[in-house]
C-alpha cells in the first residue's frame, strides 16, 4: 500500500492534491496534515512513501519543514507544491533534495511527480 502525506493549510488544496493523486494511484492511502508542525509529528511516527508540502503556511513554512525533516530522514521523496514558484524557492527546495511543483496540480504533473518518487502505477 502506497502511503502519501499531504501537508497544506488549505483543505481545498489537500482535497485537490488527493484527487489528482488518486487518478494515478486509486488505492493510495493519503494522510492529510494542516500544518508543517503536525506533519513533522506524523513523519516521525509513520512511514510514508512520499511527502508533499505547501510553502506558505502558518507556523513552519515548506522549506523549514523540509529542513527539519532532512535532519532525521535524508532520503524520503519530498515534493513542495506551491503557487509561489519563484526561482529562489525552486533553488531552496532542490538544495534540500526536494522538487517544487506549481499549483494548481494537473494530472500530468502528478504523474511526473509520482514517477520521480518511484511510485509509478
Amino acid at each position, binding site marked *: 500500500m502506497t502511503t502519501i502525506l499531504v501537508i497544506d493549510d488549505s483543505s481545498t488544496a489537500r482535497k485537490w492534491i488527493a484527487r489528482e493523486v488518486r487518478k494515478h494511484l486509486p488505492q493510495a492511502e493519503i494522510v492529510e496534515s494542516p500544518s508543517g508542525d503536525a506533519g513533522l509529528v506524523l513523519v516521525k511516527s509513520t512511514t510514508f512513501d512520499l511527502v508533499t508540502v505547501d510553502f*506558505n*503556511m502558518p507556523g513552519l513554512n515548506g522549506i523549514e519543514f523540509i529542513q527539519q525533516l532532512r535532519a532525521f530522514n535524508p532520503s524520503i521523496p519530498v515534493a513542495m507544491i*506551491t503557487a509561489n514558484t*519563484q526561482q529562489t524557492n525552486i533553488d531552496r527546495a532542490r538544495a534540500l533534495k526536494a522538487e517544487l511543483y506549481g499549483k494548481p496540480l494537473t494530472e500530468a504533473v502528478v504523474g511526473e511527480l509520482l514517477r520521480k518518487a518511484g511510485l509509478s502505477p
Partner: protein
Amino acid sequence: VISLDEDARDALVEIFNLGVSKSAVALSQMVGAEVRLSTPDFEVIRIDQIAEKIAQGGDLACVVREDFRDGLDGGAMLVFTEQEGLRLVARLLDSPFPLPKLAEAEAEALSEVGNIILNACLAQIADALQIYLETSLPVCQVVGMAKWIPSAGSGMGPNMGTSEAILLKVNLNVEERGIMGYLIFLLDVRSTVKLKSLLAAFVQRLGA
C-alpha cells in the same frame, strides 16, 4: 509624487502582463474554461479612489488579498463583486448556484484560488526583476466596497495610510461562466524608488 518614465512604465506593464498571463493559465486550469485578460491599466491613484475604480454596481466586494515584502512592499488582490465570487466558488466546488452567502468552506476555497492566482503573478514579477517577494497568507473577506482597502491588509505590506499608490489593474473574464474579476497590485510609495532602479536594470538586461 510617483512618476515613471515611458521606458519604465512600459517595462512594468510588460512584466505585469507576463504575470497575469500565468494567473490566467492557473485560473483556466481550475475552472476548466478559457480566461481572457484585458490590457492592464496603470495609474497612480489616491487610496480612497480604489473602490470607485473597480466597482461594477455591487455594494460588496469579495477580496482575496496577499501582502508582499522584501524586494518590494505592496499588496496583491483578487477582487470580485460578492455575486461573482459566489459564482466562481460554486463552479469550483461543483455546488448549486446561487449560493446564499460566502460561508467558511467557500471562503477557504476562494482563499486558495486567490493564493494560486496572486502567487502565479507575483512569482513571475519577482523572477523578472530578480528579487524575492515574501508573501503573507491569503485573507478572504466580503466587505463594503467603500472601506475594503483599509481594512483588508495584514500589516505586512504597504502602509495604507499613505495617500497614493501605484494601481495595476486587469480584468479576468472567465468565458462561458459570466465571471469577471480584477487583479490589483498596490505598491507602497516608499517602494517606488526601488522599483525604478529594478525596472532600469530589467530594461538594461534586455538590451545586453
